[in-house]
Each structure stands twice: as structure tokens, then as C-alpha cells.
């Protein structure tokens, strides 16, 4: 009986201890350490990123700092993610407003969904806003892109070098080529119809008047001459660039990439 009581005590204590701990585990989606965003912007961005997190099933985090005195953007982003109670699957965009650098760190499913190509793509997409100092606009764009990227990855094929997000130019190009092929086929169809309206022409052959069975083959052979082998290098379109990973100070595996603006 005493043993049962003491066991219960331990359970209660552990639960009591873990309660605040659990609360701490829930990291904030928006951390504006640089003070670059207004309170309203933090508010609306938080609700947007929370929504994206709920939808995608991974944590989507936005962090601002002014700059770093020591260490790299990669180390800071990885550690920030690891030590602030975010889940095992996620993505974090770190912007250093005065150093004018950005870094994206991914973890777990985030590594799968955001390939090296994908991270650079997001960086390129938000660069115009970053250059203008429109931090809020950059984060909004980042949130929307995250939604797209994870949705595509859940379909089975993350955006990568072999499965790029389509730009308008790509779509226009495909449209033009499709139209060209369509017109070519239609032209052949139309010309063949037209030729049916002009059926009067000289006959090239006299096959109707061949005496059946009159063909006598006198000589007939098929001689093999030679073989020519040509080879072309395969363009490897099957696999994309994928995601490269490294280990952070906490020992967990991260993907990531960044640049300056």
C-alpha cells in the first residue's frame, strides 16, 4: 500500500513538473528579437504561421535578429529551433536585419519537404522584400510558400531540381509548344481532308492489273553488312538534388541554406 502511494506521488510530481515544461515546449511561431515588426504585424503573422503549421503538420517559424556577434547563422538557427520547444518536424526562417543575411533551417519532415533547391528558391522569392526592408512581406510570402512546399511533398514529390515550381515563363513556354504541336496535327488533319476534295489525280501504279501469282522471284537475298553503335550520355532527370544535412550542437540533424541580401 505504501509502495502504491509512493508510486502515485512520483507520478503526480512528475506530472506537476512536466506541466510547465510542456507549456515551454510550445515555441512561438514569430520571434521578433530585432524589433523589426509592429505588434499588429506580429499578431497577424503569428496567426498566419499557426494556421500554416496546423495545415501542414510541421512547425513554421519566423525569427528576426539584428546580427550575430559570434557563430554562424546556421548554428544560431539550428540551436534556436532545437532549444525553444519546437516539434521534431519544422522549418525556421532567420533574418538578420542589420547583417543583411537570411538562413533557413529545416528539421525532420522539413528536411524532406524543403530541398536545397527549394530553400534557395524561397530565398530568391523573398529577396525583393528583404532588400526593401519589408520584413513582414517577406515572412508572409515565406508562410505561403511553406504551405505549397509541404503540400507538394505530401503528394509524394517535393519541389526539387527535377521538379521545379513552375514560373509563368515555364507555363507560357509549355502553352506555346502545346499550341504549336496542336496546330501542326490540325494542319495535317485539315490538309488530308482537303485532299479528299481533290481526288482526281493520275495513278502512279498499275497494281489492279497485276496477274495474280505471276510474280516469280529469281534472286533474293538479305546480306548483313555492318553494325554501328552510338551512345549518348544520359541526362539524369530521375533524381533531384535532394537535401543536404548537418548535425547541430544538440546532436539533431538539420537541413538548411541561406544567403545575404
Amino acid at each position, binding site marked *: 500500500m505504501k509502495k502504491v502511494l509512493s508510486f502515485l506521488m512520483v507520478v503526480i510530481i512528475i506530472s506537476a513538473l512536466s506541466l510547465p515544461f510542456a507549456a515551454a515546449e510550445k515555441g512561438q511561431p514569430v520571434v521578433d528579437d530585432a524589433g523589426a515588426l509592429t505588434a499588429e504585424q506580429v499578431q497577424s503573422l503569428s496567426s498566419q504561421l499557426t494556421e500554416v503549421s496546423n495545415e501542414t503538420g510541421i512547425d513554421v517559424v519566423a525569427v528576426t535578429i539584428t546580427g550575430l556577434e559570434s557563430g554562424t547563422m546556421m548554428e544560431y538557427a539550428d540551436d534556436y529551433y532545437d532549444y525553444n520547444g519546437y516539434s521534431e518536424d519544422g522549418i525556421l526562417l532567420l533574418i538578420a536585419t542589420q547583417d543583411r543575411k537570411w538562413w533557413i533551417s529545416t528539421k525532420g519532415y522539413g528536411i524532406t519537404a524543403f530541398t536545397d533547391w527549394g530553400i534557395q528558391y524561397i530565398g530568391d522569392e523573398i529577396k525583393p522584400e528583404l532588400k526593401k526592408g519589408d520584413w513582414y512581406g517577406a515572412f508572409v510570402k515565406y508562410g505561403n510558400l511553406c504551405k505549397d512546399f509541404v503540400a507538394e511533398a505530401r503528394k509524394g514529390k517535393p519541389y526539387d531540381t527535377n*521538379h521545379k515550381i513552375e514560373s509563368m515563363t515555364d507555363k507560357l*513556354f*509549355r*502553352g506555346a*509548344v*502545346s*499550341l504549336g*504541336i*496542336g*496546330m501542326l*496535327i*490540325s*494542319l495535317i*488533319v*485539315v490538309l488530308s*481532308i*482537303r485532299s*479528299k*476534295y*481533290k*481526288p*482526281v*489525280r*493520275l*495513278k*502512279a*501504279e*498499275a*497494281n*489492279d*492489273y*497485276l*496477274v495474280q501469282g*505471276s*510474280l*516469280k*522471284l*529469281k*534472286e*533474293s*537475298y*538479305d*546480306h*548483313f*553488312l*555492318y*553494325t*554501328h*553503335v*552510338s*551512345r*549518348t*550520355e*544520359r541526362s539524369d532527370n530521375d533524381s533531384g538534388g535532394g537535401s543536404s544535412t548537418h548535425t547541430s550542437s544538440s546532436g539533431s540533424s538539420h537541413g538548411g541554406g541561406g544567403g545575404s541580401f
Partner: protein
Amino acid sequence: MADIFEYKCPCCGGAVNFDATAQKMKCPYCDTEFDPNAFIKKDKRLEEQEPDNFKWDEKAGQEWDDNEEGQMNVFVCQSCAGEIVADENTAATECPYCGNPVVLSGRLSGTLKPDYVIPFKHTKEQAKDELKRYVSSKKFAPKKFKQENRLEEIKGIYVPFWLFDSDTDAAVSYEATTVRTWSDSKYNYTETSFFDVYRAGSMSFVNIPCDGSSQMPDDLMESIEPFDFSEAVDFQTAYLAGYLADKYDVTMEDSIERANNRVRTSSEQVLRGTIDYPYHSVIAKSSSVQITNGKAKYALYPVWILNTDHNGKKYTFAMNGQSGKLIGDLPVDGKKLFALFAGLSVGLAVIIYFIAAFTGLL
């Protein structure tokens, strides 16, 4: 000088026609039918006027060069004494006054007498119906053409044809290839094997028809082929009654090159057909075709010519009077065709766009 000739009904004296449906001579007045052979006696008499001693080796042209000088192209109808004007090649026509069919027998006797004739099997009405069906089946003909196309003239003509028999010795060498592709992790391979293929053989062609009338367009006549020679009968002028007929004005010598060209193409096609290995490509490198021409025959083949008029433009159709095959060039509605082109282009483009997007090809 050519004689003018009518076939009279022994019962009522009316002028009789050859009836395509009954395949007999038929009097349009009393409906009496006769076998064309019943008139054979009359035909015999015709032939006696100029003995039947034709040889194709002889220059047929010489004879009617003489004729041409004194060629009288005006004949007197035996029924109504009206004047019938016919051009120098007409061998059968009808009197413009009384409508009686007449045969200008002198134009088809002697060296000019055909060896065979394929009698008409399709009537004027069938030809008209076939034209209607032909035009209405063409969806891209202008609507106006379908509605306003007027049949101006319909003529049943026995067209003179030269029939050539040819034996050929043909030899063709080809370069043929087979292609095999495979790939490993680094490369795609294409292996092309080359073969020297040779075929030599002989074959025979019979009764290749060549239009012997300069008035009939060659392409139109070749488009309504084939004619089935097995249904040809020995020529009798009685078959011409009720139809028009021309005598040849293109000589055998002038026609034979056309026949030989067709034989050459056919010989090559037949030899090509004996290559049964599934090569990926077969290209003829050199070919030689020796043609030995046998004797040529002279025959009259039945053709319906239908002339129509639309917006002042003439359209000519021809129907094979034996098989019923009708052919002729038609105008095309450019707007309809363009609408099809535009619609099809867009439709295909959309489909191709999505297929490309789905497969990631573009």
C-alpha cells in the same frame, strides 16, 4: 466517208438503245428487248464495208490523215433528215432534232474497230443519284455549292482505251536497317545494323488501260479505275446505241509510255512487298525494270461524265459506268475548314498542355 447508222426496232421501227439495267437492246417506244447479238448481222454488214484487217503494228494515223482531208462532219439523220454535226472523233451521238441515237459506223470500222467493249452497267439515273450522294457526303463543301450546284450536262460516253499487256523483269537493291536501343546507368545506346537487300523477279500485268481520247482528262480517267476486263465483250456497234462514243485520237505509241511508267512503279512495289523481315527502314538504292510489251488491245470503256456549274465555274465528275465509282474535284469551304483547324488546334493544345504538365515532359 463515215456512214450514219441507227438501230431500228423490228417491231415498231423506233430507234432502240442499249439498256444498262437489262444489259440488252431495248426499244423505248414499245419496250421490246433484244439481245445485242440479234444485231450481229447488221454489224457484219458494217464490217464488210471495210475489211477487218487491222494490225496494231501498222500506222493507224496514216489512214485517218487521208480521211481528215475530206472529213465531212455533217451527217444526215436517217429518221428526221436533220443535220447532225459531229466532231471528227465522235463515233456515236444522238440527233439534236429527233433525239434518236445514231452510230457513225465508219468511225469504228476497219483499223479503227475496237476489239472489246465493256457495256454500261449503270444508268443515267444511277449516275445522277451517285453524284447527289457524293456531293452531300462531303461535309466541307460549301453549303451554297450543295444547294445551287446545277447539273448542266450528263453524258454516257464510251471512251476509247488502249489496253496494254506487259511482262516485266525487275531488280531492286535496297539498304535496310534494324535499330536496337538499350541503356546502362551512364549511357543510352543505339545500335544500327545495315543490310544489303536484293530482289529480282518477273511478273505480268494485263489490260492496263490508257485513255486514248485527248478530250478526256487522263487524271479523271485513271481516278475511276479499275475496270474489270473480265466483263468485256467482243465489240459490236449495237452496244453504242443510246450513248456517245469517241474513237481514239491518241495513238498506241503515245500511250504506252504512260502504261510503262505505272508498270515500273508497280513492279518496284511488288518486289518491295516481298521483303518480309521487319526492318526499321528500307531505302531503294537502285532499280532496273525491263518491260516487254505484249500486244495492245483497243477497247471502249463506259464512262458517265457529269458537268455541273456553280458560280460560273465548271465542275466535272466522272463515273465508272461499270463499277459505279464516281469521282470529281469539289470546292472546299475555307471558313468551315479554318473553323475546324482553329477548334482542333485549341482542343489538342489544351490536351497536350495537361499531358505535358502531368508527365513533366515540358
